């Protein structure tokens, strides 16, 4: 085995590279689509392409792909409709992918629950929705830390924020209180107040628990009523998440 050290190393590098390329490709900038069909259609297409769903401002129906990742192209007929709500939970979106939806100045609600690639840099870019975003769900994102949550101060219209089960935040209830102070008009859901105080004497224990929770969530939590959207190809990424 030790003679194969460099082979294994190269293999490892490759697999990492492929993995990150997949995320990159998923989040590539849809410049061509934007030029050809306009920013709204590009944003809608991007959301569906990632496996998410959205709702146009003037419609009440959510648009999403079926379990095999196929979706209807009806949205091509309404190039002027802007998106009001986006659900990108458990998708591969990262901060680069945001480029495709920053044009949606009417975005009122965004959920990126359980996204393995949503990190502090992603949160720091959300200021572009400062004038419209009212609801944000970033729960279960393993990469988020306090360093990124502070950037939510630019979302002056925010009324509801979900920050529960963030493994990267070490004292969740203190952070929740501080977030409430920072965004006085916003209702923050997250750790119960007592959780953080318990944490002081048994930090390791609790951390382990939250960790277990995130480890199992990709397979078991779906919003009520919606069909599971976790395509088989996604599971690779979640496996990665579990191993990390």
């Amino acid at each position: 085995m030790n003679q194969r050290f460099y082979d294994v190393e190269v293999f490892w590098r490759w697999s990492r590279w492929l993995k990150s390329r997949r995320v990159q490709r998923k989040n590539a900038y849809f410049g061509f689509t934007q030029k050809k069909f306009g920013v709204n259609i590009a944003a809608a297409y991007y959301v569906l392409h990632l496996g998410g769903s959205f709702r146009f401002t003037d419609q009440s129906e959510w648009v999403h792909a079926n379990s095999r990742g196929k979706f209807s192209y009806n949205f091509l007929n309404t190039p002027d409709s802007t998106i009001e709500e986006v659900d990108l939970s458990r998708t591969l979106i990262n901060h680069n992918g945001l480029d495709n939806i920053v044009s949606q100045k009417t975005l009122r609600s965004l959920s990126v629950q359980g996204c393995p690639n949503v990190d502090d840099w992603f949160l720091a870019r959300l200021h572009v929705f400062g004038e419209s975003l009212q609801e944000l769900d970033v729960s279960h994102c393993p990469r988020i830390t306090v360093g990124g949550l502070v950037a939510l101060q630019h979302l002056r219209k925010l009324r509801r924020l979900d920050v529960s089960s963030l493994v990267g935040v070490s004292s969740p209830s203190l952070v929740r209180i501080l977030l409430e102070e920072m965004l006085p008009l916003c209702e923050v859901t997250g750790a119960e107040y007592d959780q953080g105080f318990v944490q002081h004497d048994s930090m390791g224990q609790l951390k382990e628990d939250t960790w277990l929770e995130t480890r199992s969530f990709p397979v078991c939590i779906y919003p009520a009523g919606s069909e599971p959207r976790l395509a088989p190809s996604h599971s690779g990424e979640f496996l990665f998440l579990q191993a990390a």
Partner: protein
Amino acid sequence: MSRWHKMLLSGPGYSALAISRVVHSWRFSLNGSRNFSTGKRARKDFIQDLEGQFKAIREKAAAAMPGTDWSPVELRRDLPPDRADIVVVGGGVIGWSVAYWLKKKERVRDGVRVLVVEKDPTYSEASTVLSAGGIRQQFSLKENIQLSLASVDFMRNINEHLWVLNEDPIDLQFNHSGYLFLASESVAHIMEENYVTQREHGAKVTLLSPAQLKERFPWLNTDGVVLASYGLENEGWFDPWSLLNAFRRKAMSMGVFHCHGEVTGFTCTTSSRETEDGDVLRIKRIKYIDVKMPDSREYQPVECAIVINAAGVNSGKIADMIGIGSGSEHSMAGFSLPVEPRKRYVYVVHCPDGPGLESPFLIDYSGVYFRREGLGGNYITGNSPEETEEPDISDLKVDHEFFQEKVWPHLSHRVPAFESLKVTGAWAGFYDYNTFDQNAIIGLHPRISNMFLATGFSGHGLQHSPAVGCAVAELVLDGGFRTIDLSAFDFKRILQQEPILERNIV
């Protein structure tokens, strides 16, 4: 031999094995073979003896081959190699970043042999680890804005750049809070101009009126403030150690040599060149660089083709070692590198009622700054002294009077909650201060044909280090800037006495 050794080391089972061994060897000796099992005591002696024997071999080898430092046993692991293509003087964040980019840009594996020489592996006085760790886009020179943008892009993807196989991913502990500059009436117009330049180059900055300020930061006293500019994205602060370590770890994994020693001198050749107006200029070329090892008086010369001067506050001294300035030419003074240490104090204060999570990296027009540190009501703060009141630079002692007189009054005026603060700690660090125009000096030294400079950052070197490293590597390996044109930072501006100043509001 190895089995015998193993036996020596195995504890509990030792005696039984030893007995069988003795019996065995006795039989061997009967057969006329050599008896090597010599009992417990002799074995111990043998190990002790080994060291003496090695020493003897070493002495013999030294006697047989005088003039080489070859030894069958490696004596010191941190001795620099005899030869390197590129020697980087100074292993601060700039030095390691340059080393990383040189390796990254080399076209064939092990194409360039890079050596980083650092005198103090604990970095007790290096500016990098004593800095406030801030990064901002709010500059007025386009070069500085571009450097910041490129650096922040690097930090965003730091794990793609600097992650090393089998190591933990890098966590810079980046805190995404923008810089908030406050302008008084007399400087508001500068702020507006800077804002235009910054937006032009893609920085995400916004201007705020005093009323908006009050709304967003109720704890702020806006008296005297007519305008503020606030960074929305890509600004904040991070852990300088993490960045330095990440660069160092990655560069070493890519094959950069490093050694702990101090650069104390150079061996140069000199050639003469005539200038346009007939003066004779002596141009030096470094052949060897003398590295003094710690706790020893020996020098190890390292043959090198290119030297990169990234010695931070000491880079002026390093350039002086080559003896530029001690010539007959009248214009010599213009050739010495105008970088010197300037002491800056940073105070850690505790104030439970201070600004919360939304606290920005605030910079008041009086020069006082503060930022949050962690979540427990701690802040770090400081101010730059007047040019005429620069503190003594012989040590890193902190002057607490300075806080009482020059920092606290302004601070508590701006944020009344800070009237009840408590100073819980303080430290001092040296700015690598460019006395000429407080901007970086990047490029070839005009009188030393193979020394590149990357110094003089005067308080924003840490944040620019990723992009500067790339630019210097391009200069060295490609012969010119490729990604960001930094020719404005060339030494030439000092010769021509044309400073490029940041239009600061403080």
